[in-house]
């Protein structure tokens, strides 16, 4: 290929990047627009930047700070809790043939099922055990996706650890539990970090379950953002500021896990 067509390829790539990131750039720019200028019915590209939308988020009218805190708490607990059962779980599945096939299929089915399938029974169960609108309740619901995801991704990492490592430890008289926590655990660390971040992203971005299971105390950042769309008016300034705040940490995390992103997103089918 000659030089000239190479340059065209780069121009095309830049245009594509700009098109696909236009919605995000638009919302970030709009979050700094004065409220009165967002809803003007004409295209205007100049404005004097302001922080009034961000101030509004943290004013007394909207407890947005609480929503952020709820989201951080819920995402952290559902992530760490899932890892606590998934590390031994994936180890058991990857090393013991009999268990593998059935559990693996079961886990994949849960991953593929639409959340709406679990919504009604989980809602009723939470009502029953009085965990509606609480952080533990929502964490429990989030386990429906964080646990299968964790087991499956960790499994792909475990398959890369050679069995000879364990065998020599076994000859030295180590028990299964010792092997898992002394030998496998350190080797699995990159996988655990990747799973941690993937779980965090999925929990942070979740909306459907949070919409159903929370009303006031345990409202998350996504439901909080949607609340700015009311029957009477839509608080666009606040929405754009809230969206910007919720998106930035996710983009940073994406950069951190990009090496393992493909594996996480396809449940290890492609690396």
């Amino acid at each position: 290929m000659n030089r000239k067509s190479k340059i065209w390829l780069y121009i095309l790539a830049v245009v594509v990047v700009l098109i696909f990131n236009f919605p995000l750039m638009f919302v970030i720019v709009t979050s700094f627009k004065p409220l009165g200028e967002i809803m003007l019915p004409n295209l205007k590209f100049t404005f004097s930047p302001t922080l009034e939308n961000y101030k509004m988020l943290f004013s007394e009218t909207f407890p947005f700070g609480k929503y952020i805190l709820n989201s951080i708490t819920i995402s952290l607990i559902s992530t760490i809790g899932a890892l606590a059962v998934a590390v031994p779980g994936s180890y058991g599945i990857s090393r013991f043939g009999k268990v593998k096939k059935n559990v693996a299929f079961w886990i994949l089915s849960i991953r593929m099922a639409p959340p709406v399938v679990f919504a009604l029974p989980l809602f009723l169960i939470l009502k029953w055990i009085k965990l509606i609108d609480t952080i533990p309740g929502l964490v429990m619901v989030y386990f429906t996706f964080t646990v299968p995801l964790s087991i499956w991704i960790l499994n792909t990492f475990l398959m890369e650890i050679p069995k000879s490592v364990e065998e020599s430890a076994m000859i030295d008289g180590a028990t299964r539990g010792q092997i898992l926590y002394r030998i496998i655990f350190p080797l699995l660390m990159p996988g655990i970090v990747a799973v941690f971040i993937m779980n965090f992203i999925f929990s942070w971005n979740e909306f459907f379950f949070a919409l159903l299971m929370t009303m006031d105390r345990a409202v998350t950042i996504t439901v909080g953002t949607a609340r700015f769309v009311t029957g009477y008016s839509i608080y666009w300034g606040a929405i754009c500021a809230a969206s910007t705040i919720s998106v930035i940490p996710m983009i940073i995390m994406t950069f951190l896990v990009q090496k393992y992103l493909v594996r996480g997103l396809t449940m290890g089918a492609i690396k």
Partner: protein
Amino acid sequence: MRNDRGWRFVIPSVILLGFVALFPFIFSLYISFTESTAYNIYHGKFVGLGNYISLFKDIKFWDSLRVTLLYVALSVSIEMILGFFLALLVDSLDRYQRLFMILLIIPMMIAPLVYGIIFKLLYNSIYGPIPLFFRSAFNIELQILNKPFRALLAMVIVDVFQWTSFVFLITYSALQALPKEPFEAAMIDGATYWKRVRYVLLPLIRPAFVVIMIFRLMDSFKTFDQIFVITGGGPGTATTTLSLYTYFLMFTRYNFGKAAALTVIILMVVIVITNLVFKRFFREVSAVE
């Protein structure tokens, strides 16, 4: 290695998943055979297959099925084609491939709900930038969300904007992992770029492409957040997908029995498809790598 008591390690996961996934499903199955509403959840009259029959007679069910299939077919096919060509484009750059890759995968990291709200603003017929652009450039008053088919297309566009990056990322990674020799051999034989793509590259990435498509089909079938916040299923039922229809059955019409019947059907279909996927492709791809 001996298969000694390995199942012990699996117990906590199985108990937890049993409680949050299997038990709810059994509960749904029970509710689906009763006449349950919000007021008598546990004492609903046993109606056998009544809910299933009433579901199949419900025109709104068939309507939402049609909307879902159209939505899924349109979004996934556009995403697969666009994502594939984007991967080819980035793969053919000499430098800065990694930078372009990272910039292109940003959309899928944004919460679908947030993405939906952004498009709700972009589509707004009075002050949304897209209608504003059409007004000032072509003097056309573009109403996007109050025409049935146009609203559905608008939802497809949101999906495409967000999830083309998924197809792109996975295809791109698959391209990176391909062996170089077949391409060099084809080049020596004088095959043009597009000939090489058609006869060497496509067959090589076919297994990966199938996996990508399955994940996109399943995930776009699940779509709820964006549609819920942009149109709420309207105008009329034009954008009411199966997920939204189920949601309305549960939480606005409180017809728990019928909603449970629908989720049982959905789950059965998903399990059958997952079974096929599991047998045919997961093994195949895992074995290749």
